[in-house]
């Protein structure tokens, strides 16, 4: 309510312009001016699509009073004839920080972890939720900043404090040089969100999954806060959140994957965010469109890389090259897809690049109308301010730009920007055009004088003849010319001339180096030839070479998304993992992504036949413990983070997906790390190459969750600062679980009770608070979510089984489980599986007794055993890791093979669909060159759901194509460099290869080797 009042007040203040500040005492006499300006004979864009010729614009008290061909000129108006000039609505910046204080810096802290909020006052528990922040209360007019924005054509800015996951509200302000009270267009324009932490040393959240979880929980808590269930707590953060949650909301994201993620959060709460994107939307335009969101897109196109040194250029990856080439086409591709978008100058170091880069997007095919719309109408509309800014209609703010012509032409000059009836002059529109060649007569000598540049900012040069140009300085101001030059290379001092327009030339005086005064005269000879600017040409050249998007947008992507086919493998040695064992000379048919037939001499219509003679066909490798294809692994802040979901961190463009396909991996459980006793919920994915994270997800799979024990969770190796989080001993670890499940059982009971009520009873009963963490824990107790527990030492393995049993559920899988062999009988009895390393050990104390016979011994005791990777490289050779159990302990080859296929499928409850070659199971197959357990075996084809994502021959072809395409782009980049455009040095992008031992943020040693 107060917000509405404020808005009305502010609107009112603009209405009564001249007496706007009548309630403020004034030092001096009243000085209200008529403030009426009329612009005649102009080409006027009253909005992005309506252009009037020879029209009149009447501005009064900072607002548009009339606009049109027949607008009458009020008395007392200052009239300007704008013949030949064009008026545009001033640009609206939807994502700026004008007038706001600097973003605070993240405090260093004292090295000790900070768990609680450091804000004073009745705020929420997490300092990343700054819903109560109101940019308007920190706003003040900053003339210098306003000038620099206005010089580039901006009239209004939505200013956002870029601090926190929830950033409170922005303020929409004009850039007029008026008092703070008079420039506010909307005191609270948008609610703002991001995936970037606030300037706080508070630990939670420190991962993308944690950030998503915290935002989601905040929505739920805000709802609870309003309900009678909360009868005690005062919480300004939640109160503010409830106030802003229905405003237009902008969610800032760092890339296209996060855009989809943010949109998904919105879907959960019935909010459609405006997404402030990263400029890579064109790479996934279909999915981007599907979000239904409007976008604010940046124009910070990457500079060309300096690729002169071919080896240094190796550091520029294919996706960086392609993005450089295609980024300016982003807007065009959004327009084609029908996505509503607005441009932002955010991310541009030089705001002058805003218009320059928009011109680039036009060279890449964006229509001028769409461009103008994205600069004016769309941002205004997104901010729900389209009746105030972004167009020039009666009653709207008089925010406009006067230009010398079509603003998208390179030669066009921006003359003036008017904001609320106050003007900023960039280039005198009455400036005379002196450009041309002149004959200069001075002291009896005849020299050449050439004047070039746009009127208002022209320069003069003096030369002896066409080849000898004198060094000097010049200045043309109004009708006066000042110029100094050195006569020849050896001259030490300059002749300094100053003169005035005289006829169609200049005359004036000059002082020679020796102090003598002389006269000079310059007479007009001819016009200067205009040279076509080279910069535009390179852009068009780029467009003409027709680089295309690839899927995924990274090395080894394809121009076309790969499609499902009917495939028939002929004459293979088939390792079925079923009762049939190994079938010789057998055919396998895959139709619609499923195994359709297994037999001899099969044939099928339209099948792609693959001669598998002499080769081995198996089901795909399933990695029970993987951290590939993730953009974050540990939410290692709190001891329990059951609320975080690894699905929120899936990176479907991780090159390791392709590399692991080349090792025969088709399915993986992407696990949370092991930094805390209860980690996050697993993502069960198929390794599909060239799809979105959602498309990798295995539909209908059971929910899993990571638990961890031992040194990592008690922070044994985290350094001396990390000794205060509970637990620090194995004794404490057990209590964390007991406590968690005790609370989960109570939580579950409360909900069950509530859900059991009749609809009528529910109306009068308050629902319990929804707690994402307890919900996940309750799922475990209810046997709807299953544990994969990182574990090493026998005591702790035993402990967790006992805790689980006391809550009447089972531990599904112990992963790593290097001492599983010591308690394998107990595991078998409990019903827990073991997913272990083949032979890793010796890296920390708790793996001292790890032995490579572990898998054999556990299997012997009746445990379902899998071999996992936990490593992006080892995952490529899981077949070999399985073979190590043949070496250590003589496991049979068929049982060894199951440890990386059928057994992990069992542990992941996917064995009814995957893990063996059986009619009806998923078409996840690998064709091997040799016995798949042999080190000499290479995966030649890897198929997931009937699509061959890796093919050893196509791989060679892709290498070749990529090499050629890179060469093409390198030539284009060199073109940019030649044209004098700025370049950047190649700098390899580092992508971390996650392990579960990675403990984000702390005590990580750097190796320089």
């Amino acid at each position, binding site marked *: 309510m107060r917000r509405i009042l404020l808005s009305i007040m502010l609107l009112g203040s603009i209405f009564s312009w001249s007496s706007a500040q009548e309630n403020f005492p004034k030092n001096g006499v009243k000085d209200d001016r008529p403030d009426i300006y009329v612009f005649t004979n102009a080409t006027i864009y009253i909005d992005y699509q309506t252009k009037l010729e020879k029209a009149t614009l009447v501005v009064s008290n900072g607002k548009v009073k009339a606009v049109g061909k027949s607008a009458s000129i009020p008395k007392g108006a200052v009239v300007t004839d704008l013949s030949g000039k064009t008026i545009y609505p001033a640009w609206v910046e939807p994502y700026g920080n004008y007038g706001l204080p600097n973003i605070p810096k993240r405090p260093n802290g004292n090295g000790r972890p900070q768990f609680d909020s450091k804000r004073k006052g009745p705020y929420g528990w997490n300092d990343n939720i700054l819903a109560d922040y109101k940019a308007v209360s920190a706003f003040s007019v900053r003339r210098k900043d306003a000038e620099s924005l206005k010089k580039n054509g901006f009239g209004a800015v939505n200013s956002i404090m870029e601090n926190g996951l929830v950033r409170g509200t922005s303020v929409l302000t004009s850039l007029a040089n008026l008092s703070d009270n008079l420039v506010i267009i909307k005191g609270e324009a948008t609610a703002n969100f991001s995936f970037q932490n606030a300037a706080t040393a508070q630990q939670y959240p420190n991962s993308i999954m944690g950030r998503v979880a915290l935002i989601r929980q905040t929505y739920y808590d805000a709802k609870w806060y309003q309900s009678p269930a909360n009868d005690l707590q005062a919480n300004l953060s939640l109160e503010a959140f409830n106030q802003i949650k229905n405003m237009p909301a902008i969610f800032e994201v760092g890339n296209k994957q996060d855009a989809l993620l943010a949109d998904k959060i919105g879907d959960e709460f019935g909010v459609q965010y405006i997404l402030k994107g990263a400029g890579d939307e064109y790479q996934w335009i279909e999915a981007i469109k599907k979000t239904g969101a409007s976008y604010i897109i940046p124009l910070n196109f990457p500079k060309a890389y300096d690729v002169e040194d071919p*080896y240094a250029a*190796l550091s520029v*990856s*294919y996706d960086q090259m392609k993005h450089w080439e295609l980024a300016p086409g982003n807007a065009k591709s959004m327009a084609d897809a029908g996505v509503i978008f607005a441009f932002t100058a955010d991310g541009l170091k030089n705001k002058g690049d805003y218009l320059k880069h928009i011109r680039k997007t036009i060279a890449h095919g964006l229509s001028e109308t769409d461009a103008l719309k994205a600069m004016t109408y769309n941002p205004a509309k997104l901010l729900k301010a389209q009746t105030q800014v972004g167009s020039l209609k009666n009653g709207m703010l008089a925010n406009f730009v006067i230009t010398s012509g079509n603003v998208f032409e390179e030669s066009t000059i921006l003359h003036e920007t008017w904001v609320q009836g106050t003007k900023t002059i960039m280039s005198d529109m009455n400036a005379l055009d002196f450009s041309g060649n002149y004959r200069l007569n001075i002291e009896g000598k005849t020299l050449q004088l050439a004047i070039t540049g746009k009127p208002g900012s022209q320069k003069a040069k003096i030369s002896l003849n066409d080849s000898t140009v004198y060094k000097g300085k010049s200045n043309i101001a109004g009708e006066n010319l000042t110029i100094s030059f050195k006569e020849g290379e050896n001259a030490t001092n300059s002749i300094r001339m100053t003169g005035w327009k005289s006829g169609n030339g200049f005359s004036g005086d000059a002082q020679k180096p020796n102090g003598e005064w002389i006269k000079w005269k310059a007479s007009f000879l001819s016009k200067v030839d205009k040279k076509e600017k080279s910069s535009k040409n390179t852009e068009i050249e780029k467009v003409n070479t027709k680089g295309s998007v690839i899927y995924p947008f*990274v*090395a080894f992507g394809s121009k076309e998304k790969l499609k499902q086919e009917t495939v028939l493998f002929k004459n293979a040695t088939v390792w079925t993992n079923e009762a049939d064992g190994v079938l010789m000379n057998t055919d396998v048919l895959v139709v619609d992504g499923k195994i359709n037939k297994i037999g001899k001499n099969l044939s099928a219509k339209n099948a792609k036949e693959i001669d598998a003679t002499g080769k081995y066909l198996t089901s795909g490798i399933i990695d029970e413990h993987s951290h590939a294809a993730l953009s974050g692994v540990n939410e290692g802040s709190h001891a329990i983070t059951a609320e975080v979901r690894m699905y929120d961190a899936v990176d479907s463009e991780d090159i390791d997906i392709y*590399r692991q396909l*080349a090792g025969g991996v088709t399915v993986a459980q992407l696990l949370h790390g092991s930094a805390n006793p209860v980690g996050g919920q697993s993502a069960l994915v198929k390794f599909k190459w060239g799809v979105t994270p959602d498309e990798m997800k295995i539909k209908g799979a059971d929910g899993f969750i990571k638990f961890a024990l031992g040194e990592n969770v008690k922070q044994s190796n985290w350094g001396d600062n990390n000794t205060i989080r509970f637990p620090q001993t194995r004794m404490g670890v057990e209590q964390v679980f007991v406590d968690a499940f005790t609370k989960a059982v109570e939580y579950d009971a409360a909900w069950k009770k509530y859900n059991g009520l009749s609809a009528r009873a529910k109306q009068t009963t308050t629902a319990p608070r929804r707690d994402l963490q307890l919900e996940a824990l309750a799922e475990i107790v209810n046997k709807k979510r299953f544990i994969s527990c990182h574990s090493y030492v026998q005591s702790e393995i035993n402990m967790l089984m006992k805790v689980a049993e006391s809550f009447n559920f089972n531990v599904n899988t112990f992963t790593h489980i290097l001492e599983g*062999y*010591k308690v*394998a*009988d107990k595991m078998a009895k409990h019903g827990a599986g073991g997913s272990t390393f083949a*032979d*890793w*050990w*010796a*890296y*920390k*104390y708790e793996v*001292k*007794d790890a*032995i*490579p*016979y572990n898998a*054999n*011994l556990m299997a*012997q*005791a009746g445990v379902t055993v899998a071999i996992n990777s936990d490593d*992006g*490289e*080892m995952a*490529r*050779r899981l077949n*070999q890791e399985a*073979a*190590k159990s*043949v*070496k*250590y*302990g003589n496991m049979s*080859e068929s049982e060894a093979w199951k440890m990386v296929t059928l057994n992990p499928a069992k542990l992941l409850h996917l064995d009814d669909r995957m893990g063996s070659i059986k009619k009806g199971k998923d078409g996840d197959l690998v064709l091997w060159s040799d016995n798949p357990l042999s*080190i*000499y*075996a*290479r995966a030649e084809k890897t198929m997931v759901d009937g699509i061959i994502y890796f093919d050893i021959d196509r*791989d060679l072809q892709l*290498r070749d194509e*990529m090499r050629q395409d*890179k060469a093409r782009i390198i030539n284009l980049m060199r073109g940019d460099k030649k044209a004098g455009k700025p370049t950047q040095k190649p*700098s*390899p*992008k*580092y992508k*971390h290869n996650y392990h579960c031992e990675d403990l984000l*943020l*702390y005590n*990580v040693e*750097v190796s*320089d*080797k």
Partner: protein
Amino acid sequence: MKNILLTLFILIHCFKVSAQVPEPAKPQSGSILLNGATAHLGDGTVIANSLISFVDGKLKMVADAETAKIDFSQFDQVIELKGKHVYPGLILPNTTLGLVDVNAVRATRDFQEVGGVNPNVRSLIAYNTDSELIATLRYNGILLAQATPTGGTVSGTSSIMMLDGWNWEDAAYVIDDGIHLNWPVQKLGARWWLGESEGRINPNYKANIGIIDQLFKDAFAYNKQSNPSNKNIKLGAMKQVVNGNASLFIHVNNRGGIIKSIQWAKKAGIKKVVLVGARDAYYAMDFIKENDVAVLLDEVHRLPNRTDEDFDLPYRLPGILHKNGILVGLTYPSLQSSRNLPFFAGTVSAYGLDKEEALKLVTSSTAKILGISDRTGTLKVGLDANLVVSEGDLLDMRTNQLTHAFIQGKALNLEGKQQALYKRFKAKYEGN
């Protein structure tokens, strides 16, 4: 019969040691003949049916049983190895074996000294013959290891150790074989945990190059004096390297560093230079070859350096270099997996190199690089009897199954604590 006795002896012995490291072997007492194994000599040749004998720790005969006629009774022990394979013992260069047991436990870390320049620090004297890791490496065929300090600019002096012995004096194969230099990087790694995706310029790059250059200039000058009046143990420790009797191992990975470090070493007058790491060697192949520098490639089982690189480049690289005439050995920087050395060679073979050639990368080529090819690395008469016997192909984990191993003719007790634990729990579950 003697064979059976030996096996029995080992078995009994093994049960007795239980969770202890295996007892060092006794010196070879009589002559031994290995009969009928397929011998992979390490120099590219294979003898399908071989006769190999050794006396007093030296190989006395390596012959083809199809052609050689010998009297079996002259040997004190004949071991029948029909169907089995015999190989030179594998050599693991550039390892912290013996210098650390559990990396996360500071008390067991003895491989990195403080201070940037430590040529005088010697791995030899810290090498722990009782490390539990040693037996696990031998179990897969590794018999020699170059125990190497790490870190800093000059990490220290390495020594080549036999993986059997009562103490470091006993186990030393070559004392102080070389000095290890970490060539400075121009760019430091990205601190990913801070969200960095790009590295930073190393502010000390130039200064560190200057330190290295000055160190070697000083070392050359110092060691020219026959009896320096002002003793400097750091410079003194570099004598063998500046004299060309020991190698300078330059640890460097990026192409620029590979080229610059070799150019520097040549200019500095260092005679024996070996590159260690050299992950970018693919892009500096001709340069390396032209300068005749050997390469110890680390970690065949790694991911490509760059997103765009062929997925199998790390697997193919050693073979590519080898085929180009560059002397290549394989190494592994981290201890937790170095027992898989034979499988590195197997992978190299799977990705393009002939098996016997791939074997060289863990035997004869490494021996040449370490300057011990006159003593070991191949099965050749006169060399040390360092050899291993496997049930099948040593380079494939599916068939790598050691039955015998000899260092200087001493029959090793292959089974260690891991085997003892296996047996203990196997018996427990069988008893159930």
